[in-house]
Each structure stands twice: as C-alpha cells, then as structure tokens.
C-alpha cells in the first residue's frame, strides 16, 4: 500500500514552490469541506426538523429551541411497534443467513469441485435480479401459505439477498486465511468442521462481524418487499413512515423524526464497517 499519491509534492522542489503547493492543498481541503456541507444540507435539514416543535415545522428560522416532542408523538402513534418489527426481522434474517451461509462459504472456499464456478455465479446473480421479479411469486405463494403480513415471511424474502452477501463476502475472508493451520488441526485428529469451528472461524471474526452488520443494514433498509408483503401486523419502520405521509396529514416534524429513527442504526453501523462497505455493495459482477 503506498500512501504517496500521484499529485503529491516531490520533495526535491524548491521551498517557495512547496509553499505554493501546500497552500493549494489547503485550498483543496477548504473546497472539500464546503462541498461536503452543500452535499449534506438536504439531509441536515431533515435532521433539524425532527427536533422542532410541531407548530414550528414550516418555519425557516434556523434558531429554535430543540424539543423531543416529535419523537414522543411517534411513540404514541405506535411507531415503536414497527421499529420493533424492523429489528426483529433484521436480526432474524441476519442470523439465519449467517447460519446457512457461513458453512456454505467455507465449503466453497476450500472445496474444488467441478461446478464450483457455476454455483458461485448463481449465488451472485441473485444480487442483480430486480426485486419485482421476486415479489410477484412471493406474494402469490405467501397468499396461499398464509405468510402475508408476517415477520417470518419477510425473514424468508430477505434471505434472497442476505444469503448471497454472506456467501460472497465470507468466501473472500476464508480464502485469505492460509490452510496450513487447518491442516495442522486435521493432523491432530480434528474433523473438517471442528477445525473450521475452532481454528478458521475465530480468525475471520472481524469479517464475520462486518458481514453480519451489512446483512442487518440491508434488511433494515428494505422498503419494497416490506411495502408489498406486509399490511398491518408485520409493518416495518420504513413502511410505517410512508403511512405517516399518507394518513397523518403531513405532520412534518413527526415524519422527520421517524426518518431520523430509521437511519440511526444504519449510520452507527456504517462507521463500524466502512472498510467493507463497497465489498458488500458491489457483491457480484466484479468478483471473478
């Protein structure tokens, strides 16, 4: 990894020229900060709205005394229930994806069988397919099975993308671990899976955490599936927001507060897995 970059100042330049370039670098930082503020402005606007008193929502005054009124109002509107649904669905689907996906990823990383490439490709393809192609069959099947508007239905649907993420990401992490340690464990009489459990898996713990967090984020953020496959019981937080938009007569502070609640866990988690984010988002396609 070279930290030095193509536009950096060669150290051999005379002092005055280096000073000029240093100034230019500060210019660059200043510009970057300005652009950042500009880019985040729409987002920050929503954030400040969430803390306004309800009567003050439409005001453009930047000075106001922040209040948690809107959040309290959300609580009364049973938003907590949708929030709980979101948590439950995301945790369950993440857990199930790891349970099924991690062993599969390990097998794919260590076992050279003939159809390996095709299997990997098939797993990756699920990332590309448009959700509508899944929702129609799932909707019809769920209507028949009585799974519409149920938490388990959503958990099942989220497996379509989470399983692919787990298999794809974990495969990469396993391949980065040398096999020598496992082989030593085998020689000591460990079975393949006990060597995996005691030797390999602990080594990939950071990767495992990152993968779990990404699964959580993707399940948490889904809007499309939840909109179509839930009605009242299993409504998740993103869908509940839209219901605010439709029925609550534009209580903007509340809507902004709900948005803030929904993005909070995602923002926190993102800081944790920043490094692996692109990995997860580009799952498929570029990987050979």
């Amino acid at each position, binding site marked *: 990894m*070279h930290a*030095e*970059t193509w536009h950096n100042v060669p150290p051999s330049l005379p002092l005055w020229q280096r000073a000029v370039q240093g100034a230019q*670098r500060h210019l*660059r930082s200043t*510009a970057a900060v300005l652009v*950042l503020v500009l880019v*985040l402005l*729409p987002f920050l*606007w*929503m954030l400040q709205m969430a803390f306004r008193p309800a009567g003050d929502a439409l005001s*453009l005054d930047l000075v106001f005394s922040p209040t948690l009124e809107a959040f309290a109002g959300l609580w009364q509107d049973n938003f907590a229930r949708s929030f709980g649904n979101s948590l439950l669905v995301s945790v369950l689907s993440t857990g199930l994806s790891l349970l*099924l*996906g991690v062993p*599969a990823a390990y*097998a794919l990383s*260590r*076992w*050279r*069988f003939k159809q390996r490439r095709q*299997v990997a*490709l098939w797993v990756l*393809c*699920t990332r*590309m*397919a*448009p*959700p509508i*192609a899944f*929702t*129609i*069959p799932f909707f*019809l*099947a769920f209507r028949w099975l009585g799974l519409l508007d149920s938490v388990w239905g959503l958990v099942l649907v989220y*497996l*379509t993308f989470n399983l692919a993420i787990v*298999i794809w990401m974990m495969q990469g992490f396993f391949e980065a671990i040398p*096999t*020598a340690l*496992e*082989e030593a464990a085998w020689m000591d*009489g460990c*079975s393949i*899976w006990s060597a995996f459990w005691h030797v390999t898996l602990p080594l990939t713990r950071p990767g495992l955490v990152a993968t779990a967090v990404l699964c959580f*984020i993707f399940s948490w953020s889904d*809007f499309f599936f939840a*909109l179509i496959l839930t009605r009242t019981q299993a409504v998740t937080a*993103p869908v509940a927001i*839209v219901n605010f938009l439709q029925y609550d007569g534009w209580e*903007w502070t509340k809507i902004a507060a709900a*948005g803030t609640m929904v*993005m909070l866990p995602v923002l926190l988690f*993102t*800081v944790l897995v920043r*490094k692996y*984010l*692109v990995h997860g988002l*580009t799952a498929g*396609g*570029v990987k050979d």
Partner: protein
Amino acid sequence: MPPTASLDAGPAGDLPLAGEAKGKRTPAATTLNWQRESARAYGLGLAPALVVLAAITLLPLITLVVVSLTPLSLTDPAATFHFGQPTGNYAQLLQDQRFLDSLWVQAKLSSVGVLLQLLVGLGLALLLHGESRLLAGLRTFFLIPMVLPPIVVALVWKIIYTPDISPLHALLEQWGWPVRSLIANPDTALWAIVAADVWQWFPFTMLMVLAQLQMVPRDPVDAARIDGANRWQVFVYIVLPYLQRTLVVCALFRLIDSFKAFPLLYVLTNGGPGTVTEVTNFYGFIQAFNFSYWGYGSAIAVVMLAIIFVLSALVSRLGKNRGDAHAR
C-alpha cells in the same frame, strides 16, 4: 506465502496421516478415503444453503415465467392454469403504449442519472484524493447519502421538493425566482428524481475511483512531470486510462441498479404527474399490485430480467479481464 499447495488438489496431497496413524491402510487408500470424507463434509456444509437458495430463487423464477404465460388476475382466479395464449402478455406488451413509454422514461432516467453520478463521483474522488488526514476523514461523511435507507433519502428529498417547508424553495423565492413544486411539474419531475438519485449514488463511483486512484503507479506520473507535463495532461493521459475500467464497471453497476429504483419514485411522484416518471419497474409494480394483473406484471418483470441479464453478463466479462483485484 504459506504453503498452500494443497488448495487446488484438495487437502489430500500431504495429509495421509488421519488413517495412517492407525497403521492399517496404505497411504494411497488413506488419501482416497480422506478425499471422500472431505467431499462429504463440504457437501454437508454447502447443501442447506443451496437448498434454501434454490427454494427462494429458482422456484420464484420458474413461477414468474409460468405466471407470465397466463392471464392471471384478481378478477379471474380461473386463469391460474390457463395457458391458451402463452405469449398473449408479451404480444400485448408490444402494443402497450404505456409500457413503451415507461422504457423511454427508464432510458432517460438511467442514462442521465448514471452519467451524472460518474461525473460527480469522479470529480469528488479527485478532490478528496490525497494523503491529508482531513481529506481521509471527510471521505466517510461523503458516504452518508449512499448508506441512508432509501426511504430516508426519499423523505429528505420530499422535504426539499415541498415548497412550504423547503429551504430550496425559500431561497429561490428570496432571490425573486419562485418556482412551483419541481415534482408536480411534468417538465421537471423526472429531472428532480434524477437529482435525488445522483445525490444518493454518487458516493458509489467516488469510493470505487478513490480505491483505484491508490493503485495508479507513481513512476509514469513522476516521469511525465519531469518531462514537463502539467496536471491536466497527467490526468488525461496517465490517470484517466487507469480509471477507465473502474468507471465502466461503475456505470454498468449503477445502470443495473437504476432499473430497480423504487422508493424515490414511490414517495416523490408516484409515477406522476401523469406518467412522466413512470419507469418500467414502477409500471410492472402498478400492473401487478395496484391492478392485480399478475400475469401481465410478471411478463414485464421477465423483460426486465432479460435486460438485466445482458448487462450483468457484460459486467462479469469486464470483471474477468480485470487483472488487478476488484475495488475494495
């Protein structure tokens, strides 16, 4: 490098020991045994995931295609297994002006959106590329739009585009240039969506380009600078060629994803005004879930799948040729 010779041959190569310790089998037989044993173990690990994956991807796909061959709708449950006119839905698609319009809207949204995302992402990557601590720290904050749940992005822009409460509209009014809601105006609605979409997704290109910029070798750049090339020339003739493939892969990725755009459309314009922002995905959604024409909606989904399949094949071909690792 640790000794990984056994990676390709399976662990059998240098591991005859598991059975040999018992002193009963010849090494060759043990090797075979171990191979069989490991294959069984790996198979057991892989099987549950593949079975579940088949159930939740292949079955729906087959169902989708089968349903697309029937006139299944809410009003006509008897049509479930009606295959009298298997290509009826597809024939109808070709004559459905609203569907054809939706393809055109999709083309406009995707092409302009992806192009702008590339430009903005590339520009910001170049701005943020450097070894200063501050710049490195700022990068993270630029990722916010991309990681926000899509519904929150839609909400943010709903606020921006709603004149009563929008700081944008307030500013424009103050400058003596009041405009009516951008998303209610047929001339601007699609471009308002594109703007929000670009805001959400430029960080993707930015991230990928930043990763690639770190791999640009120093030597040719230094050589060019010594030969008197200015910054612009270095960028165009040396850096840009290194970024070329990354940019193409980014574009294809975003193109594929742009076919799935939903929350922005649903919350901001709901396909309107009229049908000016109704993309193919949205039209399929309406046919299936608003009008309950599942057969017809499925046919639309199948067409989209076909388009995406072609694009994905392109991506994976490009990915394969990339000698260096994919962007991380």
